[in-house]
């Protein structure tokens, strides 16, 4: 081999190695964490989403970090305090004030300004407002869903109720619940209940209680969020109505205070209860628990019943960028991708969660023609969010504690609510 050929081959090898190593060096790895990664249906969907992302952005590698629903705040708090939080992570909107207060969420306004004017116009105004801290965007909105009534049409028929006429008022709801609470096997013992709901101290509790308190015309706090509003006659009525579903009318299965969201969905899946309050996630999860139920066929959704005004709770999640990220531009690319119109629609098709983007939830035929999502979307104008203040988790825990005390008969509902009122005022005055 001639000298010149050897030199040529060597040059090609060196250039190939150099270009490979420089491509390797340019690749950035991001840590992405989401509690949905622990859920079968969502996990598959998120992995597919990341495959699309990797094809479009080969220079960014995303590693997935699952976390349980109940532990996500703990994980992100500890890691943020240590300066090692994932680059992008997913939390409840009502956790945001605490993350904002501690400086655990990066200011996104420089990235949004670069996207040009009108970038945020694609989203509903309410979720955008809730993502702001000191007037600047510190998170991007994700899932945006209303709580509605899910019911089993076959159990309605068996109880002599018309499955096309779900209860419209809370009084009607109570009447339905009584008819659906039955002894189905004739052994003299009740084995089916009208309504399943959460009573455990869980973040999901406030979502299920919101349709009661707001529809009765009450609220947890005064409009300026400085004092408890639980001393109103409407609040007392809503509280007593909820408690008596269990204590007086017995239309809720035993063990209420230990029941979490998954327990209640299991009750619906196993035909132990006929109605629950849920949202877009309910049909796929119930179907997963008991495929024999044929949840997508048997279940129907209806707006939450009304007392004085139509109102329900809104579930809103948010995407946060860690202030400690070493790759803010790439993290923003990832956040923009997972909140894009195309991918938000994918999240809906795969997981039945409606989007905080109005160009998805407001117009997509996939949502408007879906028997569950169309009901969820129709309720967005009546949705309310929990107060976005840092004391909210403590206030809700205090309220939940008092409700449990009333449910198990430790205190009369009026006394339990009065104590909650006093304690919440003490928390707000601190």
């Amino acid at each position, binding site marked *: 081999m001639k000298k010149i050929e050897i030199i040529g081959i060597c040059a090609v090898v060196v250039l190939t190695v150099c270009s490979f190593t420089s491509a390797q060096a340019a690749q950035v790895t991001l840590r992405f964490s989401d509690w949905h990664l622990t859920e079968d249906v969502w996990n598959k969907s998120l992995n597919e989403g990341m495959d699309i992302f990797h094809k479009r952005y080969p220079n960014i590698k995303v590693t997935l970090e699952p976390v349980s629903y109940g532990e996500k*705040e*703990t994980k992100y*708090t500890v890691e943020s305090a240590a300066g090692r939080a994932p680059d992008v992570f997913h939390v409840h909107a009502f956790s945001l004030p*605490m993350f904002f*207060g*501690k400086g655990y969420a990066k200011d996104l306004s420089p990235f949004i300004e670069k996207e040009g004017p009108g970038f945020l116009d694609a989203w509903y105004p309410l979720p955008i407002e809730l993502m702001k801290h000191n007037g600047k965007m510190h998170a991007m909105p994700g899932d945006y869903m209303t709580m509605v009534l899910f019911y089993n049409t076959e159990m309605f028929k068996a109880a002599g109720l018309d499955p096309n006429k779900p209860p419209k008022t809370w009084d009607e709801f109570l009447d339905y619940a009584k008819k659906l609470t039955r002894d189905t096997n004739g052994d003299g*013992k009740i084995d089916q209940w009208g309504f399943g709901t959460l*009573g*455990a*101290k*869980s973040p999901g509790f406030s979502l299920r209680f919101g349709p009661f308190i707001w529809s009765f015309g009450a609220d947890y706090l005064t409009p300026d969020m400085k004092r408890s509003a639980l001393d109103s006659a409407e609040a007392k009525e809503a509280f007593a109505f909820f408690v008596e579903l269990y204590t007086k009318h017995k239309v809720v*299965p*035993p*063990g*209420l*205070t*230990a029941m979490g969201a998954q*327990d209640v969905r299991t*009750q619906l899946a*196993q035909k*132990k209860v006929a109605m629950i309050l849920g949202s877009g996630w309910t049909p796929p999860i119930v179907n997963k628990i008991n495929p024999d139920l044929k949840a997508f066929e048997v279940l129907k959704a209806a707006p939450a019943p009304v007392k004085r005004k139509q109102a329900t709770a809104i579930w809103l999640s948010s995407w946060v960028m860690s202030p400690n990220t070493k790759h803010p531009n790439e993290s923003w690319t990832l956040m923009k991708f997972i909140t894009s119109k195309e991918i938000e629609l994918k999240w809906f098709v795969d997981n039945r969660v409606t989007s905080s983007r109005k160009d998805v939830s407001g117009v997509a035929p996939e949502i408007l023609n879906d028997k569950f999502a169309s009901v969820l979307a129709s309720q967005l104008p009546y949705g309310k969010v929990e107060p976005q203040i*840092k*004391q909210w*988790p*403590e206030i809700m*825990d205090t309220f*939940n*504690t*008092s409700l*449990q*005390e009333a*449910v*198990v*008969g*430790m205190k009369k509902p009026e006394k339990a609510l009065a104590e909650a009122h006093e304690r919440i005022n003490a928390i707000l005055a*601190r």
Partner: protein
Amino acid sequence: MDLGIRIKDRHMWMVFVLPGVLLLVLVLGFPAITSLSYSIKPEKAGPSSYTLSNYTNLLKDPFFGKTFWNTAVFVFLSVASHMILGLAVAMVLNRALPAKPLFRLIALLPWVVPDVVAGIIWKWMFNPLYGALNDLLLKIGFISTQVEWLSNPKLALFSVILVNLWRGFPFVMLILLAGLQAIPRYLYEAAAIDGASKWQLFIHVTIPGLRKMIVVALALDIVWEVRRFGLIQAMTQGGPGILTEVLSTYTYKQYFQFFRFEYASAIAMVMTVVLLFVSLPYIWMISQEE
């Protein structure tokens, strides 16, 4: 030894001990000092850099008082039941049983199960609709309707303690079994020759022979039970109301759910002081032996 610097032989122990001490300071000392410094910081930024307000607020917090009481009941009943059952099982397993290793393995199994897993399993067992426990008791006619083990205010704390008995007795059993095997046989034989009854053998030979092991088991079990968290969090999250709320779950709640780092640190420091007092007999006994 020549490492470039000359270390006298009588000082060599320092070299060997140093890595361990540094590791301890890093993993125990640093978090402890951080907690202490948090506990004396005001919750709201103000002119004062340090304050005892988090500690004085503890005294005004009605939930803290009830939680402290719940912890005392939980720890007392858990440790007492661990000692009784642990000693009983240890004495059975110390006898000449067939397949003794198999029985020892079975007795140890609850201890191997992680706290949270045990809590979730037992929460299902206690479920009023699907739970195995209610189903069994209904079938044998012991109860006529579903019992709300974790929702009944009279039963909730005791249901958790019952699970903790199952979960924690093997540790005590293991320590006491080691103690029983160390008691010389001739003591029993001599006492038996003197006409001692089984009860007298137990009171005058077994218990004195186990004295040190009982102190060790008591001290360690109390420390662990004060810190018990996963089991209660998985089963009740402190409910109904705050009937099963203990100091560890309350601290967790204040820290990770309410983000009150300073207040949570003050609770953690109180727990540390209580545990230090509880550990004193154990520390004293160890130092006496040395």
